[in-house]
């Protein structure tokens, strides 16, 4: 069963690109800086007693009359932690951000599972509400799908609190993917991920209604999370100022991410998640 009705086959040959120094627990498809048993040549070193004689490079011996052992790189798996903002604001709009965010998380999980990585999922508002421990192998996909299908949004959220609550679950040199609309405090949370030596990917989720509101006239805006109210007379001028404020907000997030070496992407939920990932693939994904 494939949830979220997506053409996942287009993602089959993609995998998250790491920046080196990944910590793995099992053999996978990601080459590490350690010597291992992969087919990828790494170096030579003089033969030492006890070395596997199958690794002696006999061609080198023929040329130099010295025994050298050929060293190959190690291949490890990676752990991808996908964190989804579960606040009520994520479930708002004619194109609900929540559903598309879950679909995006599943697509990222699919890519990771296909890449022999481990995938952990966490969702919450101010702390972790639901957590799926790292899973791997194709058999894990239904578990991931089932986990995501069970998730519900609600309550006021705080992204920083949520990310800080992950502290005990993260290990250095792991991927952490954050999917959120960033409509709450976020800076401290992202700072904690960087501090935890995570390779962070940020997906800033917006809905078309948020980017380009269609209402006009005198309105009392009601916050979907807090119930707070604000009166505005929404005309073209106010709308232009709102769009400007939104653009500044996005730019603020991007600037921060760039300064911390975090890859950030704006995801308009009007776009199919698979299509979106294919589009941004050159930046964070590579072809296996």
């Amino acid at each position: 069963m494939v949830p979220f009705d997506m053409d996942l086959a287009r993602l089959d040959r993609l995998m998250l690109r790491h920046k080196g120094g990944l910590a793995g627990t099992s053999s996978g498809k990601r080459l590490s800086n350690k010597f291992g048993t992969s087919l990828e040549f790494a170096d030579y070193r003089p033969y030492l007693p006890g070395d596997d004689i199958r690794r002696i490079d006999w061609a080198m011996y023929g040329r130099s009359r010295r025994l050298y052992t050929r060293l190959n790189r190690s291949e490890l798996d990676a752990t991808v932690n996908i964190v989804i903002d579960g606040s009520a604001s994520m479930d708002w709009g004619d194109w609900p951000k929540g559903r598309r965010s879950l679909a995006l998380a599943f697509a990222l999980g699919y890519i990771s599972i296909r890449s022999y990585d481990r995938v952990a999922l966490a969702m919450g508002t101010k702390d972790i509400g639901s957590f799926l421990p790292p899973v791997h192998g194709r058999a894990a996909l239904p578990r991931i799908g089932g986990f995501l299908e069970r998730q519900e949004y609600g309550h006021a959220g705080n992204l920083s609190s949520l990310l800080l609550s992950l502290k005990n679950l993260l290990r250095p040199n792991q991927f952490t993917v954050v999917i959120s609309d960033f409509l709450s405090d976020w800076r401290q949370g992202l700072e904690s991920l960087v501090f935890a030596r995570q390779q962070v990917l940020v997906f800033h989720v917006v809905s078309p209604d948020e980017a380009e509101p269609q209402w006009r006239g005198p309105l009392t805006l009601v916050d979907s999370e807090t119930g707070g109210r604000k009166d505005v007379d929404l005309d073209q001028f106010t709308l232009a100022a709102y769009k400007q404020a939104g653009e500044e907000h996005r730019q603020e997030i991007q600037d921060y991410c760039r300064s911390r070496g975090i890859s950030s992407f704006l995801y308009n939920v009007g776009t199919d998640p698979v299509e979106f990932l294919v589009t941004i693939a050159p930046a964070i994904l590579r072809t296996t």
Partner: protein
Amino acid sequence: MELLTPLALMAGLVIPAIIILYMLKKRTRPQTVSSIMLWQRLERINRPALRLSKLLRTLLLALQLLTALLLVLALARPVLNMFGGSGGTSIVIIDASISMGVKEDGETRLEQAIERVRSKIRGKAPGDKVALIAMGEDAMVLSGFSTDGAALLAALAQVEITSARANPNAALALATNMAAAEEGASIMLYSSGCFGSLARMPDEGFDFIALGSQEVENLLIENVVSDGDRLYVTVFNNGTVAASASIEIRDDEGQLTGRREVQLDPQERQVLVWRNLPESPWISAAVASKEDQLELDNLHYSLLAQDVGGKLLLVSEGNLFLERALLLYPDISVSRVAPAGYSAAMAQLYDYFVFDGFLPRELPLAPILVFDPPHPNSHFGTGAVMKIQSYQPLSHPLMDHADFSDVSIGFGKAIVGGSGLLEFDGGLLAADMERQGQPLVVFGFALQGGDLPLRPAFPILLRNILDSFSGSYQPSIPLKYGDKVPGGEISVQAYGGSPLPQGQRLGAGAYTLATGDTQELILLNPPVTTDSVATQDSLETPRGKVQGKGEQRMPLLWPLILSALLLVGIEWWVDNYGS
């Protein structure tokens, strides 16, 4: 500028309403959003866009107010009054003949003309000069060239209907002379055009503003004559549609003594006869009709006992036909004198005068019949003697029963002004005029110049004329409708009423005229014409037709509406700016 419907300015109340609506807090509707975090940032944003927003909101208010103002003004139908003179100098001639008394749309043509001229005077530039002329049977200058609006308005208020007919030639001649003194002056004639062709035409700068419509319903009391036993009331329809009315006869106490219904087609005349007249020194006949558009000629007063006799002086070198014809009337004593023997003192001795080929320097104040007047003369306009190819009789009470079909006239001269009896290529050949309240009938040919004296039409025509003369009883002091109460030893009081103040205008009615110890009953009747009172929208002139201009003012309705639409477009653009 003038507003045709000033009441529409009441719609201007919408302007403060718009301001109040802007000041009111708008009623909002709730709209759930993901978060108000970004919206709260708007208050901290101080960008040119928001400043522009506030500015444009103010601009929107201003545009809406301006649009509302323009639409309110458009509803009030403003017109721009334009005096035509190149140098802002104009001579305004206002027709004061009875045809201007026709009431249309609630006001008479004269009131319409006065209102238009009044608005022009109010809207004229400070340096514009305007002169006013009232055009009755005589042309009267109400105001010379003046830039003083108040003085012009005061002069304009003096215009009243005092004449049966208009004499446009006299008025135009006067206006042309005045225009010659002011370079670039234009002449504007406000009239219904109910007169004959113009004998002359200003060289340039002449506008005819036609007033009224070409469909009029009007019955008039043409004449009321009593022979002692019977009363003859002549009712005439000089309108353009068939009309019906009640004719009411009242005695000096206002008691109704008779009523008849009449129904007349256009140009139809009916004589109503009453017997068993009441014991009353005078009697009045009135047209009672709600549809009648000209009230002025609906009332006529007449003495019941009249002395139809009198003394007639024929001033002629010798005219056997005329002398014999005049002797047919036994009640009239006829005397003859040669022109050389005529003196001004004779004017006081006779009741009627017949001038044959001669006119004295000063005409007597009595009914006058003139044959072959000298050309030119100082009393009325004439043309040069010319051969008459053909002519035609016109509809006129004096022409009743006079058959001119077998009458030949060889030579004659045109008569200018008055109501026509005979017409030929050069204008009127014979005309009925009024001079200082006295009838003046002029034939522009000598009796010897044709075979009229040999035809039956001649005694009938003469009888009609002398009958009309004897019916025009005049008191010792000539007063006529529209005159002001004279001062001095003369006092005028309404019949059975109190004396009237000096200077008050006399309307139609019965009055007692007191001079010293003597008292005299006088009856004043309004001017009456049997000419059509339907508006002529073009004038016949020697240079061809001059088309009347209905409006000589520029309506501002469409410019205002177009401006309002333009503002709406700008407002739409401002409202959508940045979208």
